[in-house]
């Protein structure tokens, strides 16, 4: 079922890709192949493979249970938040929080997760800043005045 669904999504995607290739602008300097043909070839092959997967799917993979999906969603949200806070909030705080939450999602032990967060944040900062010489800000720039 998962394979069928995936195959169907890819099939639709490859048709859309094929059609989108029509919108590729061509310049007056055109070679015999042009910029549209190769993307179309790719989408044709992809569509064919997707069709074969729909027709002959593999065994169903073991999907996680509802609780695990929830933890995966939290992890995803944390990563996105980390991506957006790394610059404005400096390295130390977002890294400690993100690493701590991820650690807790992997193994639900509060104290260990907090220590992992703090340890990774501090340790990596020292490595990045002083051993590798990356320009990182430890804390929000506003704090530095």
């Amino acid at each position, binding site marked *: 079922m998962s394979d069928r669904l995936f195959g169907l999504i890819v099939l639709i995607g490859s048709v859309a*890709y094929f059609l989108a290739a029509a919108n590729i602008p061509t310049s007056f300097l055109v070679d*015999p192949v042009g*910029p549209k043909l190769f*993307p179309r070839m790719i989408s044709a092959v992809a569509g064919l493979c997707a069709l074969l997967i729909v027709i002959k799917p593999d065994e169903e993979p073991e999907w996680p249970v509802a609780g695990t999906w929830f933890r995966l969603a939290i*992890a*995803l949200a944390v990563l996105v938040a980390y991506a957006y806070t790394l610059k404005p909030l400096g390295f130390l705080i977002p890294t400690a929080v993100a690493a701590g939450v991820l650690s807790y999602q992997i193994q639900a032990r509060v104290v260990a997760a907090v220590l992992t967060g703090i340890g990774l944040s501090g340790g*990596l900062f020292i490595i*990045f800043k002083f051993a590798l010489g990356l320009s990182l800000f430890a804390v929000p720039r506003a704090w530095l005045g």
Partner: protein
Amino acid sequence: MDTFSLLAQGFAVALTPTTLALAVAGCIIGTMVGALPGLGPSNGVAILIPLAFSFGLDATEALILMTSVYYGAMYGGRISSILLNIPGDEPALMTTLDGYPMAKAGRASDALVLSGVASFVGALLATFGLMLLAPILANVAYLFGPAEYFALYLLAFSTLGGIASNNQRKAALAACIGLGIAMIGLDNSTGLGRFTGNNLHLMDGVDFLVAIVGLFAVSEVFIFIESHGKSSAIGVKLESITIPFKDIARCTGTMLRSTVIGFIAGILPGAGASLGSFLAYMAEKSYVKDNSMFGKGDPRGVAAPEAGNNAAAGGALVPMLTLGVPGSGTTAVLLALLMTLNITPGPLLFTERPDVVWGLMAALLIANIVLLILNVPMVRIFVKVLSVPPRILLPGVCMVSFVGIYSLSGSYFDLILMILFGLLGYFLRKLNIPTVPIILGILLGNHMEDSLRRAMVLSGGDWKYLFQSGISIGFWIAAVTGFVAPVFLRRFITKPQAHKD
């Protein structure tokens, strides 16, 4: 100039204090990366690339650091195979078959030393093979025109899909996804955007480092969250390290045979180290007279896959350096490194940048000796590394990936894209769709299209041109057989299953 004077030149490059230090650091990091389950050679090298850039290494130095990591990971993979029955990286899977039973029988140290020596023999001889073969192949590569390159790229995808995966349609689909992603961005010949949706960030295309780090490293975090980070306790006792001279002597033939097989498997574009260790193990099993102990702790079953996979690791560098076609997932990542450094692999690399090529080869020879020391007398240190729990390791890997990509581009867009690739990687792995063809597709997509278009310009649009030289016909035939043959062979060759406790 002959090989020796070139190599002497290479040693002049490799023996400077900085390069030497980088090679040693690379070996140490590589062995750790290889030993830790959940951190294979490809994602280990991938997350280090952005850092190597921020560190401001020049081309030769960066390449030496990364290939040392690559060689080191091939050595290190065996440690967790033998002690935990979990392959540290994919090629080390075959080592679990006899390595773990041997360790359970109280011979963990013998298995570690023997496999370390086998790795050394395989890697060292393969490095010599690389030095002899690469310049020859580089000369042959001068004969390649765009039609030949197009067929060669196709061959890489089809062998990768045919031999290295269990499901052709999924591997081919993965390659198409990668190629499709590569099309995003400015078209090389018209200079106009394709599939960008008028997004300025997409005009430059999708950076392959972002895709690699996302697919390999970030997806691993999701996988581990799902598996609750089952920590692996070392199940077997490691007594004092002694050298089992008897076993080593008995396995000399095994190592040499496996090295040859592994090296050849490594050269095949798209096949790589996993195939090398698999073929070496299977060949050794059918070659020896008394194979009743195979799978139950036969020392030859430990030596064969280790010599095989390390030889294949060296072999895989041959097509990567001479043709720009990687032979495995990790060499694909190394190719990404070269392309980011603005070095185009191929025959010209050998004539225009001999310092890079021969410096690399000399560094590999040095790295091998360092690795032998690290992996035999000092193996205990790396055994300790295995006790780092996933709840510390995985967040760490994730943070390093973020900082690496962030320091490279400084844009939120790339970080979000990396997370999306991580999510995609998670679903693809659940659906058993290989991710290496995607990487290869993103890396080679534009080259593949360019060679097709250039071939058509040369022929004035005549498609028969693609099949006109002997070389290209050979590649087409090999591509088709490489893709189709495994379907029939699979009936006769089944992969041995790992032990269950």
